[in-house]
């Protein structure tokens, strides 16, 4: 029903996501709603999230691509720019959104955010503080959480 007047752009993006997925990223539309995507991002190598499999949900609002997609982590993650509800602090999801960006670029940006946490623009004050005061310790916690919650089992 909801998929009957799906814009060409979304169809094309979906086709491309499925046929040429970006490395470490998979995104597939839900069967009953083509605007809802189940996403999985592999923790980047050399990051505290390495070895983890992170589940996200992505939703394309009615105004997409004029408005940004809505994305959130479903897997618990210890990261200064992600809060405990899984919301992500990323400029392109807010004021830096441009309709020329795509689902793929958004997911690649999130993956990059895992490699380069930015405690200076925090979403979780506590985690950011932890990160700034003793990064090594914070990284340890992030690794532990990855083991605990994102082991992909």
């Amino acid at each position: 029903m909801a998929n009957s007047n799906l814009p060409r752009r979304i169809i094309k993006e979906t086709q491309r996501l499925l046929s040429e997925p970006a490395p470490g990223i998979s995104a597939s539309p839900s069967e009953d709603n083509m605007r809802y995507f189940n996403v999985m991002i592999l923790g980047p190598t050399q990051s505290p999230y390495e070895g983890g499999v992170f589940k996200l949900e992505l939703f394309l609002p009615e105004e997409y691509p004029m408005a940004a997609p809505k994305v959130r982590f479903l897997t618990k993650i210890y990261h200064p720019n992600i809060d405990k509800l899984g919301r992500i602090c990323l400029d392109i999801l807010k004021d830096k959104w441009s309709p020329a960006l795509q689902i793929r670029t958004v997911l690649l940006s999130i993956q990059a955010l895992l490699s380069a946490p930015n405690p200076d623009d925090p979403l979780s004050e506590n985690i950011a503080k932890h990160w700034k005061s003793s990064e090594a310790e914070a990284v340890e916690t992030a690794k532990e959480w990855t083991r605990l919650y994102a082991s992909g089992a």
Partner: protein
Amino acid sequence: MRISTVLSIPKGAASILLRYYNWSVSKVHDEWFANEEKVRKAVGFLEKPVIEYPNVKELTCGICFEAYPPDKIHSAACGHSFCNTCWAGYISTAINDGPGCLMLRCPDPSCAAAVGQDMIRELSSNEDYEKYSRYFIRSYVEDNRKTKWCPYPGCDYAVDFVVGSGSYDVTCRCAYSFCWNCTEEAHRPVDCGTVAKWILKNSAESENMNWILANSKPCPKCKRPIEKNQGCMHITCTPPCKFEFCWLCLGAWSDHGERTGGFYACNRYETAKQEGVYDEAEKRREMAKNSLERYTHYYERWATNQSSRAKALVDLQQMQSVHLEKLSDIQCQPESQLKFITEAWLQIVECRRVLKWTYAYGYYLPEYEHAKRQFFEYLQGEAESGLERLHQCAEKELQVYLNAEGQSKDFNGFRTKLAGLTSVTRNYFENLVRALENGLSDVDSHGASSRTASAKSVGGTSSKGKAGRSKPTTSRSSSSNRNIDDTGHWSCEHCTVANVRGLFERKRVSLSQPFASGIVKAKSIVG
């Protein structure tokens, strides 16, 4: 538009530049000529597209991924192609997000090319474009809000000025009023140029004028020195003489104002009629003397109103700090019922200021403008007489109630009188200010022809001016009465008199003009 012609960039680009530099034309110039490349980068002007249009039949829109013929595709200077529908959606979203749309960039996330106003007009709906224009004008006005330090000695406040308030006069929190444009004290209805000229003149003549500021004059009847210690010009000599006279002209007060039925005339300068034939040297001396006398006349009245205003300010403070409370006790009136007295004094302070500046106005109103001068002197005389009435009532008549032993029966009558005088005087002065700011344009009898004369003089009739100076015409008495000023002269075609140049520039300057022209400019950018 000036900027776009000077920098040879498109008009839409010029408005982006101006917007970026908060509408400061001079800043745009400075920055552009200092480092054009840097400015281009910051603002998003590209010299050449990053993508050249390939010579193909179809282009793919970077937003909807559909292919379109080139005429359905637009791009900013960068060449990134998007279809018209997607542009409309992109622009509309930005406009509805707020004034950030004024600095819109190409949708391509890696691209900083500016989206100009012409593109926005072409690609957005009327409704969106209207909204955009509103932001545009608002930003123009808001960015022209400026802040200046209060020029009053020792005052540390900064004063905000909003373009469009209709006048240059601003008042600091310290209560000092000044002109935004020239930072001299507030000087409506006289324009800044006249004020500057007048202040220069005063400093040049200051030595000659010191005696004017003396606070004592001989009583015209008994010749005893009388000190002026009150604000109004109505002086009563000490007993037993008790002669009532006018401080300004030393004439009997009974000849002044309403009592005589004639109009108040000590504001006008009338030179003594000179008869006889003069040789050249004598005439020069005579003219110089007259010129100084004429200046003295205006200066004395200007300065006296100034000190009268200062006195009124002191009186006002005294009234608020001491007298009102006392009066409220004696007359059994709540202080809230005595507001009319404060209002009267505030009005006096303001009127003294205006009246003071009308004397600078009068000094520079050329002699050849016979009709205007006459009308001006009538208006000024009425203003002066009205203000004297008000000042006297607030100063002297009030004294009776302040000194009364107990409640006065006629206090309510006094209230009605003072409140009435305040409101009448306020109206009169408001109209006076308006009339003078309009250059007394209601007077047209001599106006039309004198305008022609002035146009010629502005067009460079220096030879005429010289002729007027070097060849003082026949010995008509009037010609010897004219002032010699330190500024340029030119001769009136109607009365063969040398006149002061530069008055007409003054007349054309209307105080509301800066605002009006600003808005016109903003509109012309928009539409």
